[in-house]
């Protein structure tokens, strides 16, 4: 974040523009810091987001998909929906973009130490979960955490993000990586079935376990009762919210749920915290 003016983006260079999904709607971008100083000042944790700016088009908020233990770059995976996201998709490698961040709070990685962790993701909302997994698997801290289970679902294999990494994680024995697609598909040898059912099958006991869940509203809606059944209390369920945002600083008044600004007090909340807020998101 620019120390003197939080509205000024820092310049970054687009080094990779990669089409992530078969439907071509999601691209992943690797950005490199232009100034060494900016790189040193950009301290973030999994769950935070940033405003990405395309010069001449505007800016929009996206979760940071890279992890602090991947120094030198920031990664974002962006669905093409409107002005800024379309412009990003069309950018050539080597172009300069602006980045404002890191913004918002993060998954409570400190409090998670000594606990088992279940990560549940659906669709393309897997971005900050990728960041979290990379962070937890870092050899310097993997020992701080208990068992790690990941359930990640997509409609079909072509829509899964980060396919190579998923494969790599599946081959490791310090993480239980479960990838699932909704229905059987040609060439898919992995698991099929909806996320809630798979969670019920593979999730460990709720004891000393925390669950991080991020995905489309329907997935969350149907996974919640499963988690409850497994004994997870609202304090043990952590979610990340999306709202329409502009400033990211708690000033423009756009992203509130009750007295909380999702951009600044969130986007990460426990279900317990959300239950105390008005149901307006």
């Amino acid at each position: 974040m620019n120390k003197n003016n939080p509205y000024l983006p820092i310049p970054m260079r687009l080094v990779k523009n990669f089409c992530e999904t078969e439907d071509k709607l999601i691209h992943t971008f690797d950005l490199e810091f232009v100034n060494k100083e900016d790189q040193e000042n950009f301290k973030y944790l999994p769950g935070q987001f940033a405003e990405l700016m395309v010069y001449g088009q505007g800016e929009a908020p996206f979760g940071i998909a890279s992890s602090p233990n991947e120094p030198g770059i920031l990664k974002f995976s962006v669905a093409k929906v409107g002005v800024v996201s379309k412009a990003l998709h069309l950018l050539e490698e080597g172009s300069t973009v602006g980045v404002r961040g890191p913004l918002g709070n993060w998954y409570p990685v400190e409090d998670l130490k000594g606990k088992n962790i279940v990560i549940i993701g659906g669709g393309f909302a897997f971005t900050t979960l990728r960041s979290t997994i990379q962070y937890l698997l870092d050899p310097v801290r993997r020992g701080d955490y208990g068992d790690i289970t990941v359930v990640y679902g997509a409609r079909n294999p072509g829509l899964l993000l980060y396919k190579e990494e998923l494969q790599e994680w599946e081959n490791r024995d310090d993480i239980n990586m479960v990838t699932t697609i909704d229905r059987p598909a040609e060439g898919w040898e992995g698991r099929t079935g909806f996320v809630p059912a798979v969670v019920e099958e593979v999730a460990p006991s709720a004891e000393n376990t925390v669950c991080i869940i991020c995905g489309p509203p329907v997935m969350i809606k149907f996974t919640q009762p499963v988690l409850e059944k497994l004994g997870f209390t609202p304090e043990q369920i952590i979610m990340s919210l999306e709202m329409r945002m502009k400033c990211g600083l708690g000033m423009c008044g756009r992203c509130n749920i009750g007295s909380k600004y999702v951009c600044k007090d969130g986007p990460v909340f426990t279900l317990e915290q959300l239950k105390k807020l008005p149901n307006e998101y």
Partner: protein
Amino acid sequence: MIINKSEIAGLLDNLVKEYRVYAPVQKDGIVTFEQINEGTQAKPGATSKKPPKEILFPQSEELFNYQVDSQGLRMEDKIDDTKSVAFGVRPCDAKSMMLLDNVFHNDEYEDVYYTTRRKNTLIISVGCNQPASTCFCTSVGSSPFDTDGSDVLLTDIGDSYLAEAITEQGKEFLCKLNLPASDDQAKTKAEETKKQAQLTSEVDTTGIKEKLDDMFDHPYWESLYEKCLGCGACTYLCPTCHCFDIADEAKDCAGCRVRNWDSCMFPLFTLHGSGHNPRTSGKERWRQRAMHKFNYFVERYNASACVGCGRCIKNCPVNLDIRQVIADIKAQDTGSEVS
């Protein structure tokens, strides 16, 4: 100290040489705060239709401009540190600036555009001898001669104003003006004037925050919004409303980032990129406006976001009256009252 009314124009002429001076001005049929070049343009004692918040937080402002070309990227932000004087602000509007200070300099971030202007702007207020029928400042913890947020408070005592310094900066400012000292007669007159300023309208706001704590799902909101047109006048003209939009005005790779006032009364305000909208109808939007002013803002900053200026009442095309809303909220049954 005393300022003779006949000398105001001359005094402002002198100030203009040293400061950027804002004052209420009659323009296009309404009174607004404008930068003046001559003292005669000012109408001190007039209440502006648009609140003077725009001196610190303009309706539209450029945050920075940029250019990307073969020479790389250039960016320039425009932070305005011109020494300024806002002359003729109403006490309620001065108080609103203190509320806005909470927003634009929160526990984590500082909006340097706002705070730089704020630091460099002296607020010279004029108390209200005759509050309008729509004013209800005393119901929300203020009064016609409230000094909160002002550097100098002027009291109209007939042919002249009695000037009181409220802050150190106000004191220094008055010293520089070389004004005659106020005599006992003027002081007595000012005291009487303050006492005589009567509000004609009142509404009991005690306990409204707690009442609203239990009212998010109350049926009251189902009907409140029905006649609202969603025009947003109530929020644009409110001295404490601070919502804004950020947009780029650009051609190819050169342009500027601007921010413009926005309103929670507009459906697009919260529309997600996915098409989902957490506030689909006027019901949710009116609830947001009432809740923000009398519950959420209180929760965050320990004060309600209404200074009782009455602008939203005076300018609503369908006469939706926030005083009535407050009274109605207080009268609702939330089932949690101790009887």
